[in-house]
């Protein structure tokens, strides 16, 4: 789909503006932060989720949308306070709980996690392990490691 080693550019809408860079943690399965993320450790604790056990802290965390509980905003806020939050969040559907957790963190602590929205087509182009640089205007630069013919990195 994408040529090896060549940077990819995508344009996202900045729901909560900001810049960030880091390794992408990408899932196509929706996730509820409450019941899904431990605010003390940043671990995905939804044992039914495909990324159960992975750590979101410092990652560019891409998941299509929230699910379930209305307490997800409170978990994101507490993650931001505790320093366990992702570096940025990318969704393919607006998730008001993510925006809200970030807005309230800004109100209370003067810090927030940027939240971006990609089209579903662009979202499906993200891969777990991509190195992602997000600019304040929503431009996303992705560099992907060259893969060997067997498909492993």
């Amino acid at each position: 789909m994408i040529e090896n080693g060549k940077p990819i550019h995508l344009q996202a809408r900045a729901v909560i503006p900001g810049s960030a860079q880091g390794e992408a943690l990408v899932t196509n399965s929706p996730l509820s932060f409450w019941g899904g993320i431990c605010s003390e450790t940043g671990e995905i604790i939804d044992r039914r989720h495909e990324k159960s056990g992975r750590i979101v802290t410092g990652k560019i965390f891409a998941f299509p949308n929230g699910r379930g509980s209305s307490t997800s905003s409170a978990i994101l806020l507490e993650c931001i306070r505790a320093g366990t939050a992702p570096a940025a969040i990318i969704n393919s559907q607006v998730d008001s709980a993510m925006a809200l957790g970030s807005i309230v963190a800004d109100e209370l602590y003067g810090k927030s996690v940027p939240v971006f929205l990609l089209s579903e087509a662009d979202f499906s182009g993200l891969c777990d392990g991509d190195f992602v640089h997000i600019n304040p205007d929503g431009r996303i630069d992705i560099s992907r490691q060259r893969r060997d013919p067997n498909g492993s990195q």
Partner: protein
Amino acid sequence: MLHLSRNDQQMLEGHFGPGCQMAMRIVVRLAEACGVPELMDVTGAHIDGCGLLSESSLLFAETLAGKGAKVSIPTTLSMGPLDLQNWRKFNIDPSFAQKAIRQGKAYESMGCIPTWTCAPYQSYLTPRFGQQIAWGESNAVAYANSVLGARTNRYADFHDICAAITGRVPRCGLHLQENRKGQVLFQITDIPAEAMQGDDFYSALGYLIGVRTLNQIPIIVGMSAGVTSDNLKALGAAAASSGSVMLFHAVGITPEAATVDQACHGDKPRQVIEVTPQDIQRARNELSTAAKTEHLDAVILGCPHFSFDEFRQLAECIRASRAEHTASETRFIVKTSRTSYSLIENNEMLDLFEGFGVEITLDTCVFHTPLLAPETKVIMTNSGKCAYYAPGELGVKVAFGSMQQCVDSAVRGCV
């Protein structure tokens, strides 16, 4: 561009005090972030943000209350982080309790009604059909939209209280008629009416619907006309946990679905999914992570909070078990609201429960208050919502079964 009314603008400029100003600033920032062009009025709210206790949630509540914020519309509270009357009986850490009490006081001081329940629709101040409201707590949202026909989005923690203070919300989503159209039709097939009378059937059905619809609006055809409020509560809670269901239409049962045609606003459903007895069995299996015969540490009922009718059903289950007491190492916890509890307070059922070893806790939820001992390994429940979240939130294995199976397992001390 977000259009603000003159009153919105005044709130934003601080004419009604700094608490209202902060709440309005959050409402406005959120509307802008989500790209919604205007705000609208709501006339009732239900707060979920009072449930989880964390350093930041406490700071948020005390900041708003400290700035003098008051709710401007009738506002009920969802379950809190503490059984405010009985916490000492449950060996709750006093330092946790003190913070929980502070958080509760902050919400009460803003003028919220101390209902402290996740099932407000069975408690107090039930919204009317078509009423525009701002409710938090996913199961309550599903019930309010689907069963009552009120109109709400799923208000995230903190947004709920800001909506209650300002009386204003972004005009979008399920507040608007055109977004309430049913999309995926579930046809219940070959399931005998007796099977639909079990309390666990609706949890399993809700779980399955949540998994299969994600965030679309389901239509359910073939549900028994004898379905109860508690059944619909269980269904909505499970569907809102395994999926994002905020509204379902049960044809012939819920108020916006006299017919399939009405539920679909005259269109055809995008997809039709048959629900067979095998599908229900598969859903039951998926909700359980504990093996049969495993040692059982606790039964947990009342997720969402138990109603009077469920207490009556529990009394029948205990009598049917012919046992006097649970196994000595198995706890039996029932969560309810102070409103439902007040209905059984002088009832002889209470003696039966006490003798059997039932611990009744008010105002709270095992997910938000440290009620279970850390060594708890296996729990059992008839709630699809509790079964869905328990492995991650409580770090336990869970067995899913009917209320009678929960009682019988508690007597044996194993699943």
